């Protein structure tokens, strides 16, 4: 048993960390694997970059500087995914994705992917869910994410923290929003 100094931060870390891992990080890692299979190295680099930034953002959630609302990837302008994290850790992982562009052998690509998987394992250890989080894009994934929602969304509401689930799951785009005219 360990002391929880800030229960609101702890709930934010657990709930948003689980959602970011299941909805974002796992999918990015699968994209990396798929891109490597097809020799799409730029796509592999892109998704490794997303995997790294999203993983760091989960670790950041556990620090007092971490932002709980992760914008959609294309709107992450001043969202800082490594706020509050040790600079050596940040530098190590920011420099990681580009290495795939210099990998020339299958062994190098395999080692690079293994290192990326290691980052996810580290983040999962920090989140410390028991049993471990399900893989969303698997047969048990939907029930897994619904279980996360059932346990953690009431806690987020209780502490006044925004939902951990994507806005897309909560409402469709509103096409009748007032248009701007030139």
């Amino acid at each position, binding site marked *: 048993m360990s002391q929880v100094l800030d229960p*609101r*931060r702890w709930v*934010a870390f657990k709930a948003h960390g689980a959602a970011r891992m299941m909805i974002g990080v796992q999918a990015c890692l699968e*994209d990396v*694997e*798929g*891109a490597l*299979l*097809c020799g*799409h*190295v*730029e*796509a592999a*680099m*892109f998704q490794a970059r*997303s995997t790294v*930034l999203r993983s760091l953002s989960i670790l950041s959630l556990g620090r*007092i500087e*971490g*932002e*709980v*609302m992760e914008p*959609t*990837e*294309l*709107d*992450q*302008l*001043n*969202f*800082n995914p*490594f*706020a509050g994290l040790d600079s050596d850790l*940040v*530098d*190590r992982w*920011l*420099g990681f*994705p*580009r290495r795939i*562009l*210099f990998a020339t052998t299958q062994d190098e690509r395999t080692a690079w992917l293994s290192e990326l998987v290691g980052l996810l394992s580290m983040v999962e250890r920090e989140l410390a869910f028991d049993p471990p989080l399900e893989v969303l*894009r698997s*047969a048990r*994934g939907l029930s897994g994410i619904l279980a996360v929602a059932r346990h953690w969304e009431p806690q987020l509401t209780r502490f*006044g*923290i*925004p939902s951990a689930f994507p*806005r*897309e*799951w909560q409402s*469709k*785009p509103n*096409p009748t*929003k*007032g*248009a*701007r*005219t*030139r």
Partner: protein
Amino acid sequence: MAKRIVNVREAAAIFQAAGFDHKAVIADLRGVFPGVQFIVATGSLFAGYGTPKSDIDIIAVVDTAKLSDLPILEYSASGRMDTEFYTLGDVTAMLDRVLEPDFVIDQLTPGGWRSDFRMLRTLTRLAHACVLEGTPTMWSRIAALQSTSFYCRIADWWTVEALRFRTGARWLSGSNPRLALLRYQDSAFAALSAFAAARGEIFLPRKWLGEKLRNLHAHAELETLRKIMTTDVAATDHEAFETMEEVLQTLLANAPPFDLELHLAAGVRCAKLGGVGLVERWGLRGREMPGAPTLIFDATQGQCIWRGSGIEARPPQALLELFIDDMLWLGARVGAPLEVGN
């Protein structure tokens, strides 16, 4: 030049490779929603870039007033399929709106940005979709998305994003060089995405940018992409910033003049406490501001708190610090001044 759309026979092969039968999928959807108007298969596999790990995305348009928004996931031994439902009214309204000659995509306010981004994401997926079943009217309306005017809409959206991110990167560079270099990269990715979109490669996910440029035989742009990708964002030396600025100077050489606005980010609240102010987000982190400046502390969500123009624009120091702390949202627009209709 219009991008080639996968035909039904090719779509059937994609379904089969993923362990699905497209006719059974259509029959299942018809069984659940007899009023289904339109069924399309879309996603990266149908846009021409997918991998064995990619999902098949189905969009079903149903003639009803309201639907559950939760995507439905389905799995076979070898593949995954996500089905999303839209009402006919929503899809028709999106098509009407985006194809209006006077329509301007909102990238200036946080709420408008999110709403219009989601609309564009849906429409670009429809534009690349293979129609499995649908009425001729709906078919022709979707086909209108394969037009130069729609491609230009998407290219313009990316150009504004490139300008927005370049401005933000400059503002971040003094205090958080690692984050600034990441955002410089994002700006360049957006500028290259604008290049690809103007030539018909409008599928939004950036991860396929390399494949889009390869499809277009855009060798110089592909070289630029690799140059940006291989820049070490952890190095934070002067050379890395110079490289980014040089690349963007070229990529955005023909970008039009633009305006900027700052708004409070979602979840930000301000409190005047005597002579001092507290700006906090979600009650989880905050910043003390001596003097509680009126332009921040009297602002409400959705209200503009600062305006500027061009790449050299810079807000007052107090606002810059709040921007760096991710308490403010930066919007941008190009062209003539807009009248806000909402």
